[in-house]
């Protein structure tokens, strides 16, 4: 019996899988000075997958018996993940070449993780979600520990690994219970089964949802499961941190979005308050701890925890009659967050060439030494704080509006978010203050062209999205995943 496979629907995945095997094999035949060629090769593969994804715009295809679905939601995130992959490849080239790392293996692992990300938004089956999630995180454990001789990087890998595997186990336990209650692993079937009468199994279903949510809370570093993130981010090579904080985190959120808004939507009255608590604590704790940081990557790590709090907020609004708006707000926020965060990390990569300790004090005088980078960094920081004229403002605005429209607890959450945004201004502006106002040693900084290009591109995008929010905000509402 041959399976009927829609090859067009999985073309991007096929291209990526092919590329990563080619990268691994070609690397063997490259002499050490030429090892960096793995990067252009990977880039070509990602670009090809990107083009293949573009041909799927507007498609609505299911394959593998409904477990894999290519719809507008999936295509939007595939395009996003592949774009992030290209940017991270740009950031990686000089860093890994000059540091004499295992380059071929690095690009192989990065592409594997990207493949997992790309599969994530199409996975409409518990098993498929689980495998995608594993493929996102397993290579990430390794590239987090890639600075082999630095005990801090080793430990970043170990901690990330143990937390990742533990969260998978907890999530799987929940999934197994869901399967038992509903008799299916398909998300749509689960949604249907959980909508109906459960015959006395409501408690078990809720317990199962709690396990799954806890598993994902680890992945997206929500409080109180956030403690691994700062250490891992600090210990990993900076380009890898950029990838973890943007693509890997977004992949966790896409999985969570599908589970919550498709499979568990009828239990929203139960898990909505759980997410409200997650959201409030995650953003508050993230912001308060970020205020005390002196190291740039740690600051960005706590900032990304706080940002996860904002992304969790729309989940708490489910079941208040604004599901579609909340869903679109969450997706928009994730996309905008990734752009500004990647930009900020691009500047950090550039600065890491000067000082590997990456203290905030190391940014002193950047405005004079590298005005373009300093200007871009200022834009990213302002955007992360959610202040106009930047894209970050719209991200917060849509979440805020959804909260107000939901009424009740939504308004309270929206207010907490605004207060937190104001607090966050203090630490976000610490870096621009350092760059502009504090005198640093005068030494013109030479950053790799690709890194500067990424920073400039991201800064331009952040401004452009502020002027035309529809550049991003137009797409999430097209998703057919959530009914109005």
């Amino acid at each position, binding site marked *: 019996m041959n399976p009927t496979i829609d090859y067009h629907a999985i073309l991007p995945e096929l291209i990526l899988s092919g590329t990563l095997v080619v990268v691994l094999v070609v690397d063997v035949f490259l002499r050490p000075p030429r090892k960096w060629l793995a990067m252009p090769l990977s880039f070509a593969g990602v670009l090809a997958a990107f083009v293949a994804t573009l041909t799927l715009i507007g498609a609505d295809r299911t394959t593998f018996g409904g477990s894999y679905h290519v719809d507008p939601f999936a295509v939007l995130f595939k395009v996003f993940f592949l774009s992030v992959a290209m940017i991270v490849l740009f950031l990686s080239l000089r860093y890994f070449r000059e540091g004499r790392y295992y380059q071929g293996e690095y690009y192989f692992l990065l592409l594997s993780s990207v493949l997992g990300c790309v599969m994530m938004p199409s996975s409409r089956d518990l098993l498929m979600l689980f495998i995608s999630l594993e493929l996102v995180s397993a290579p990430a454990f390794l590239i987090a520990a890639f600075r082999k001789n630095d005990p801090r990087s*080793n430990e970043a890998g*170990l901690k990330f690994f143990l937390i990742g595997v533990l969260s998978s186990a907890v999530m799987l*336990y929940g999934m197994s219970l869901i399967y038992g209650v509903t*008799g299916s692993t398909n998300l749509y079937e689960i949604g249907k089964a959980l909508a109906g009468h459960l015959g006395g199994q409501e408690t078990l279903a809720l317990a199962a949802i709690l396990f799954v949510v806890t598993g994902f809370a680890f992945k997206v570093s929500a409080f109180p499961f956030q403690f691994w993130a700062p250490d891992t981010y600090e210990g990993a090579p900076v380009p890898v941190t950029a990838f973890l904080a943007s693509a890997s985190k977004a992949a966790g959120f896409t999985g969570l979005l599908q589970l919550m808004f498709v499979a568990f939507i009828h239990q929203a009255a139960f898990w909505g308050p759980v997410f409200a608590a997650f959201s409030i604590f995650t953003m508050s704790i993230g912001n308060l701890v970020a205020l005390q940081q002196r190291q740039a990557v740690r600051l960005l790590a706590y900032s990304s925890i706080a940002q996860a709090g904002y992304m969790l907020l729309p989940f708490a609004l489910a079941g208040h009659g604004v599901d579609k708006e909340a869903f679109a707000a969450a997706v928009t926020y994730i996309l905008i967050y990734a752009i500004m965060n990647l930009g900020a990390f691009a500047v950090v990569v550039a600065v890491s060439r000067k000082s590997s300790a990456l203290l905030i004090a190391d940014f002193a005088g950047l405005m004079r030494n590298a005005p373009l980078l300093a200007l871009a960094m200022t834009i990213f920081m302002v955007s992360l704080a959610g202040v106009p004229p930047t894209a970050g403002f719209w991200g917060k605005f849509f979440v805020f509006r959804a909260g107000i429209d939901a009424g009740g607890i939504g308004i309270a959450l929206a207010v907490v978010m605004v207060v937190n945004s104001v607090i966050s201004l203090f630490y976000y502006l610490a870096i621009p203050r350092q760059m502009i106002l504090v005198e640093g040693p005068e030494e013109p900084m030479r950053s790799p062209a690709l890194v500067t290009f990424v920073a400039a591109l991201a800064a331009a995008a952040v401004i452009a999205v502020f002027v035309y929010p529809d550049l991003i905000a137009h797409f999430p509402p097209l998703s057919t995943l959530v009914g109005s």
Partner: protein
Amino acid sequence: MIRLPLVLFFSAVLFSTGVYGVLARRNGVLVLMSIELMLNAVNVNLVAFSQYVRDIGGQVFALFVIAVAAAEVGIGLAIVILIFRNRESINVDEVSLLKW
């Protein structure tokens, strides 16, 4: 035929043992073994449910869990060996250069 709640209770005990092990043991290898225990509890659940809902999907799921667990153990032990070489210690909180 054994009643399903009995099996579920059994797997819950197994899972809890694993959770305790993850928190209480400090040796990286033992933490990994405790996680294996948790994954096995998941498999018991899946197989038991597979029989009770009369669907082979649960068994296939369990098969994937085993395969992924094998990959994870490979990765985890590689990281443990790496740390051991640099630090001569595999205790999770002894390697805590950064805060746990």
